[in-house]
């Protein structure tokens, strides 16, 4: 039967997630001879992340791109944002596409009633500030914004900063007028939110390496024939490969762009940060993922 899937996400049209979403639609449409089409709504125009997830549970939205926010439903999704859990992107890939990743995905299907069908790597989160920070001692009460993730607050407090959660929309002005002195995000977001206008340094803390899922509502999934499910899965895996190519070129591009805008990139004492963060992470992650995190830290 004919079907139009509504896919909403928060990134802008230039973002690789958006391009991969469009690619997913094209592939799916080709596989199903145009029976299934995908309408993509970027820039939160269909709703914000939590609202879209709620919409998928209620049958008003079909697809979205979402990650660690899922821990509000499925505790294991907290693994998508554990500071210093993965040293390199290869470590992260091995975990996300391995049995650990499968466990997370199974819990998401069960508890959120939405189904991950592909994952995209995210740039590592780095700390921006107006002075170089190379060791935890340099933080020295730095007033910084973190997203509303209690673990991030705990870890940055343990490192010696003064972190506070703040809505993303408030960050730029707050950096500008000095309400906060620092924030942490992947390079792509530092670029798209123009933080280079109000921050001078990117400290390469690489403290969170994570990924994000392309998801489809379980209700929508169950309406599909077996053949169409296979088409969705195949289209998703092509979108994932396509996104990875874009991601790798964008990492280098973003750094070059930010340097051109006058930002200084600072190498940090990663081992010192990691050592200082570990205990705080273990003390504050939920019990369900604690053994997994202990295991990851032991590697």
């Amino acid at each position, binding site marked *: 039967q004919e079907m139009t899937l509504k896919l909403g996400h928060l990134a802008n049209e230039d973002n690789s997630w958006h391009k991969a979403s469009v690619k997913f639609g094209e592939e799916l449409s080709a596989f199903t001879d145009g029976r299934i089409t995908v309408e993509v709504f970027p820039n939160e*125009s269909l709703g914000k992340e939590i*609202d879209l997830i709620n919409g998928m549970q209620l049958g008003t939205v079909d697809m979205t791109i979402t990650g660690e926010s899922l821990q509000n439903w499925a505790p294991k999704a907290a693994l998508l944002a554990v500071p210093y859990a993965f040293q390199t992107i290869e470590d992260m890939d091995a975990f996300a596409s391995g049995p650990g990743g499968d466990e997370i995905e199974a819990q998401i299907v069960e508890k959120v009633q939405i189904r991950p069908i592909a994952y995209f790597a995210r740039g590592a989160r780095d700390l921006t500030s107006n002075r170089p920070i190379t060791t935890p001692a340099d933080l020295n009460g730095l007033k910084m914004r973190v997203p509303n993730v209690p673990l991030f607050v705990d870890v940055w407090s343990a490192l010696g900063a003064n972190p506070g959660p703040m809505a993303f929309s408030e960050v730029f002005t707050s950096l500008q*007028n000095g309400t906060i002195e620092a924030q942490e995000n992947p390079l792509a977001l530092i670029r798209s939110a123009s933080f280079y206008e109000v921050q001078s340094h990117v400290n390469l803390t690489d403290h969170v390496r994570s990924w994000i899922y392309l998801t489809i509502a379980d209700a929508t999934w169950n309406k599909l024939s077996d053949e169409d499910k296979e088409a969705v899965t195949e289209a998703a895996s092509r979108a994932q490969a396509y996104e990875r190519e874009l991601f790798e070129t964008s990492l280098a591009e973003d750094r070059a762009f930010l340097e051109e805008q006058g930002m200084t990139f600072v190498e940090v004492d990663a081992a010192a940060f990691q050592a200082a963060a570990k205990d705080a992470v273990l003390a504050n992650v939920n019990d369900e993922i604690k053994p997994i995190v202990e295991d990851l830290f032991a590697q």
Partner: protein
Amino acid sequence: MDVGILFSIFVLGLVLGIPVAITLGLSSLGYILVAGLPPVVMPQKMYAGMDVFVLLSIPGFILAGNLMNQGGITNRIIRFANALVGWIRGGLGLTNIAASMLFGGITGTAVADAASLGGVLIPGMKKAGYPGDFSAAVTAASSTVGPIIPPSVPMIIVGALSGISVGKMFLAGAIPGILMGLAMMVTAYVISVRRGFPHQPWQGFGEVARAFGGAIWAIAMTFLIIYGLLSGLATPTETAVVASVYAFIVGAFIYRELPLRAVPGIVTNSAVSAAGILALVGFANVFGWILVAERIPQAIADGVLSITDNRFLVILLINLLLLFVGMFMETIAALIILFVPLLSLAEAVGIDPLHFATFAVLNLMIGLTTPPVGVCLFVCANIARLPLSPVVRAIMPFLLTNILVLLAVSYFPPLATWLPSLLIP
């Protein structure tokens, strides 16, 4: 045509006098049922529309205004304004406008300004020999500077809709608001000379100083709000709450006119006013979501761009559309429905979002004083115990003045953008 249902129920509801919030809800529900969408999307989108961070500042600013208002501020502001400009011909008319500008630094909505200043000034002007139509008109026209001079509820709503910084918008409104007030004073003076309105004797610098001393705490509030936003001490929400605490202290302990037992009632009334606005925002969010799902913003932008991509003409078209809509529609509902569509159009021809937000809000404020639907016009005619038509005639010169200021702000962006770029570098 599903969208046809949406708009027909909307217009019908407004004509029948159903509250705007409910009209938005009924028309959205009509669309949802005809389009075969699950109705659960309505509560979901209402929740999403109300759970927005910057909206948190609305109740705080409303409370601060109400506390100041009941804490003896109105008379002090009027006295100070009168000491400054009362000696000029048509002095009470000028006093009225100057008081609105000072009051504008406290209230975030025009209706609050019209009702509280009008309640004192319209009877006062009539007693001093001014005709009722002029008294009502000058009060209504000048009340609209309230939400242009910071703080401003409409600008907070724009911030919630578009992510434009509320602090920057507040600053962007300062110069246009002052300009509008001064321009109306010129108009009021010319009318007063022509119609031979009275004036009072100059009361001396001593009275100016004494009146300033009385009003200083009220005037300081505007600066407290701007300082809070600029200094980095507080977000708009925090500023609003701190401003309420300040207004409470001034009213209760400095002016000593705010009885403590009245405070719970004022807090509750402010909560109800804010709840009304926010419920409206909730229902309107469903309406706005339908417009986006139907890709109406894109269609409007494409439609206009297919006629012209000349920035001068696009600004003119946007102003004409907003003036027309403002004649019939309530400000916040108009903002929620039109702001995002018109913003995509404005950005397509290279208009700075901050500049666009300023002249869009200015435009809809003018709409509060235009017939047939102008809330401030109704409030003031009511206080003056006059039918609408003479007040409408009397407000025409002020309306023209304000439209001239609107055109100046529309075509000379620095009036809006210079101050924020200076203060938030």
